[in-house]
């Protein structure tokens, strides 16, 4: 099973680099909430940064490629919390 599609250094085929200007820090409120929620969960010790990165990297590859950046974060957080069904 293919995984770890995050490791893209040197790869070809991702197209031109988009040149956005005057971009807000987040494109939607839900993105900002995901960002802050992730921070709080790591601060609380629910998971650490590498556990989070690992969860992002292990998203089903076919879906990973079609997801926006913060959708990947949200999907990873959902999966991490599901795996920790009992939080003590």
């Amino acid at each position: 099973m293919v995984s770890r599609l995050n490791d893209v250094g040197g790869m070809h085929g991702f197209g031109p680099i988009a040149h956005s200007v005057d971009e807000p820090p987040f494109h939607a409120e839900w993105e900002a909430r995901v960002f802050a929620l992730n921070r709080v969960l790591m601060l609380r010790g629910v998971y650490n940064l590498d556990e989070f990165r690992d969860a992002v990297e292990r998203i089903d590859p076919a879906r990973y490629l079609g997801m926006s950046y913060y959708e990947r974060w949200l999907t990873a957080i959902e999966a991490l919390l599901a795996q920790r069904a009992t939080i003590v």
Partner: protein
Amino acid sequence: MPKPTASFTPSCGNRTLSGSDRPAGSGGHEHEHASESGAAFTRRVDALVAGLTHAGVTSDREITATLEAFLAGAGPSNGARIVARAWLDADFKARVLADANAAIAELGLDLSHWAPVTLRAVENTARVHNVIVCTLCSCYPIALLGPSPSRYKSEAYRSRVVREPRAVLREFGCAVGDDVQLRVWDSTAELRYFVLPRRPQGTADFDETQLAACVSRDALIGVAAASITPGSSG
């Protein structure tokens, strides 16, 4: 803070990770997340927060407070101030290059509101140009500079800048001469980089505030030069 004791499972029940906890070919949970709108994402976030609130882990209020504190304390203007001071004070610049975490405290900048990271500044000169990337994810000094631009997070940037940095810089309008060494810094661990761009011509009588206004977020990444008219990029 109270230790949460209730159990929690997100209502989405998302189990879409590959790897040892899911045997190959086991099928899986097939929400049609791919075609969701912002409203659907909002519902998923709401569901997570509701569950976590019930479990005593966090609350909407805490999430909002965390976000507001972050946005208030982190932004490109922090980096611009560091650069401006470094341009005016060679000893300060030397301290920034030797130990950026300690030096930025002189400007009242403090990263302790966020996760601990080791900052490192890299200096552009007449002979060296630096550019920052995280090929593996999107590591960036967010506690200092705020969120990174979308293009920094993009597969296109992350894949190309380690392979053809000069071509990428030309596309950004920041062409670098053949007599200038190009140094790419791939943030693979817990160091976070920012660039000290070169001071623009025509700024000899600028004060620190005017100099800081020359430094865009892109200049701190290394994909733009500092400029008297930095424009609206970044």
